[in-house]
């Protein structure tokens, strides 16, 4: 029975199947919001309100011809999309929405899981770099170099911003952090600065405008994905969708008070809060133009990182005051 439960947990809910459905829904939501901001309709025809459009796109890509370049490292080139998908899906399992019990830490909710989620969310960036490098295309190589350069910009502010609420809650476990802020909701207000920093950093991590530099279409064609097509590209796109869900879930768990109220109410909290975060990300995407790679790095170190340190200092002082 335990085996069946574990398999269901991994494959159906909250494993691959649920993540697939929910992340395609989030992609639809993002596209629709972005389109409405631009005075367009967005997806309309596939399914009601175009809800099935991302799924249709996924299956269409799955059916397309899959070309591997002659000069590419074929094994690496093939295996990277799968690893990427596995990594972000694993991170999805750790969100404190499903199957967690404050009293009994399990294998999906343990002390230090916030670090593991952050780590698992960093891995796709490295996978993207490897994918770009192994495809040996000139545009991919430039894209890969940009992926890594950007990583040095946004990663530190993201970590500082996400970890400071954890310091205040005095726990490295997502479920406990969420429970702490559910008990004292007013303390959430002290983390607003951190939330904004994390939002910008997540936007950069997801490589969306204004940080869509590694695959800037008008500059370096497809960038990291220039040589990817068919199934592999579909998996990469799905990876990004799931990463968006997981990252917004992480922000919701840490900054927006988590998902209280058991399985059903907690799930509603999850949907509403992730959609709120995704709405903010879409807003940012619609309002800005792509900036240059050197501007990303200087912006991250001149503004984001000092502000994140400020947030950290404020948190530590506040913790002293409360104690």
């Amino acid at each position, binding site marked *: 029975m335990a085996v069946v439960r574990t398999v269901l947990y991994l494959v159906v809910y909250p494993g691959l199947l649920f993540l697939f459905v929910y992340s395609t829904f989030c992609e639809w939501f993002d596209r629709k919001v972005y389109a409405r901001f*631009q005075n*367009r309709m967005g997806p309309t025809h596939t399914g009601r309100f175009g809800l099935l459009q991302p799924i249709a796109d996924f299956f269409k890509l799955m059916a397309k011809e899959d070309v591997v370049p002659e000069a590419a490292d074929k094994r690496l080139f093939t295996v990277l999309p799968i690893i990427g998908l596995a990594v972000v899906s694993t991170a999805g399992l750790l969100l404190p929405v499903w199957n967690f019990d404050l009293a009994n830490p399990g294998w999906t909710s343990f002390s230090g899981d916030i670090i593991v989620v952050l780590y698992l969310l960093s891995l796709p960036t490295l996978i993207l770099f490897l994918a770009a490098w192994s495809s040996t295309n000139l545009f991919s190589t430039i894209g890969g170099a940009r992926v890594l350069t950007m990583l040095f910009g946004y990663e530190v502010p993201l970590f500082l911003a996400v970890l400071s609420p954890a310091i205040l809650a005095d726990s490295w476990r997502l479920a406990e952090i969420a429970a702490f802020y559910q008990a004292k909701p007013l303390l959430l207000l002290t983390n607003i600065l951190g939330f904004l920093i994390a939002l910008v950093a997540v936007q950069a991590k997801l490589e969306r405008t*204004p940080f869509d530099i590694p695959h800037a*279409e008008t500059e370096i064609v497809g960038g990291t994905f220039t040589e990817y097509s068919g199934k592999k590209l579909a998996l990469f796109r799905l990876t990004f969708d799931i990463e968006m869900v997981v990252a917004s879930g992480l922000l919701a768990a840490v900054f927006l008070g988590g998902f209280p109220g058991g399985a059903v109410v907690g799930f509603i909290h999850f949907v509403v809060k992730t959609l709120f975060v995704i709405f903010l990300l879409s807003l940012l995407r619609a309002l*800005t133009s792509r900036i240059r*790679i050197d*501007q990303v790095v200087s912006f991250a170190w001149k503004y984001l990182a000092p502000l994140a340190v400020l947030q950290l200092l404020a948190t530590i002082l506040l913790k002293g005051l409360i104690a």
Partner: protein
Amino acid sequence: MNFQIPIGPQHPALKEPISLRMTVDGEVITDVDIRLGYNHRGLEKLAEDKTWLQNIYLTERICGICSHSHSSCFVQGAEKLMELTPPRRGLYIRYLVSELERVHSHLLWLGVAGHEAGFDSFFMYTWRDREVVMDLLEMISGNRVHYAMNTLGGVRRDIDGIQKAKILEGVAVLRKRSEYYFYIGASEPSFVARIAGVGMLSKEKAVSLCAVGPVARASGVARDVRKEDPYAVYNELDFELCTADTCDVLGRVVVRVKELLESYKLIEQMVKGLPDGEIVVKAPRKAKPGEVVSRYEAPRGENIHYIKANGSDKPERLKVRAPTLGNYPATIEMLRKGFIADIPLIFAAIDPCICCAERTVTLVKAGSGEESVVRMSDLRRRAIARHNNAPVKRNAVWPL
């Protein structure tokens, strides 16, 4: 790390074929090579086989965006050769269409600039509003792209009171929107960060490299054919020459938006002051022998047509200098020392209309780089020989 990246002849940033070979060091461009000749037009030769009237429609098809510019430029020259004076109402309608075309071209360019900078919201908004002026042009001429308004000695269609009212209405809407774009283009932080200080072209360089149009004006060179050599109706109208002194892409955005506002002024003046009378006079079939250079300020800069007549019903020679060609030397200067990320922006900032500047195809041997120009029949012969000698390709089975 020094390497060459090929931008084009096929690239998402380029809508037409041209090859920019960038030698880059990391993200910085050290050298630029522009190669033309991916598109065979043959229109100058074709023009020698067509009558004066047919050539209006041929020159109109040089460009899909500034189609009216080329046909007007040709018609101006042909009228001078035929010693025709078009009626003033005809001229007013001709240059009214040309200002509407400038509005549509600049709005299109603003959108493209936004898209190249990754600012897709700006792109969507400007292109939505461009539909207003496209509808006006369709109302006046019946067409959205090739208006076919010009004819020798005037224009082909008149405009009535209802159309006048609609034009004024549309211009009022567009003026409001353009002021908003002026605000966005000059103040949205991430957009300004991308375009300020990018693609510098000093005033001296702009003069010595013969930059034309908004590119020259953004470098502080007050050069506009409408002002310095006013043709037809422009000396009767009140408008300002827009320049900027920032010498970068930001300046080119500002100049174009200012020109939009000036164009609205011109359109209003022309609609309100439209003289009465005929719109066209009868043109002779043949032109007297002679030659003429016709200048016209197209949305992209100075457009020059050189026409030579030998007394027959066809021109002996037609030479077209599209404004884009005049801006290529300046583009190389602008791209140097820039970032890879700025290539599409800088190149788009000259508003390139690549195929308008193309004439013939040059064959380049991929191995040796040897260049040659061959006849079509020769090319065909070579292709057949190559096909017969080529080995059967392995695994060349195409799934159905």
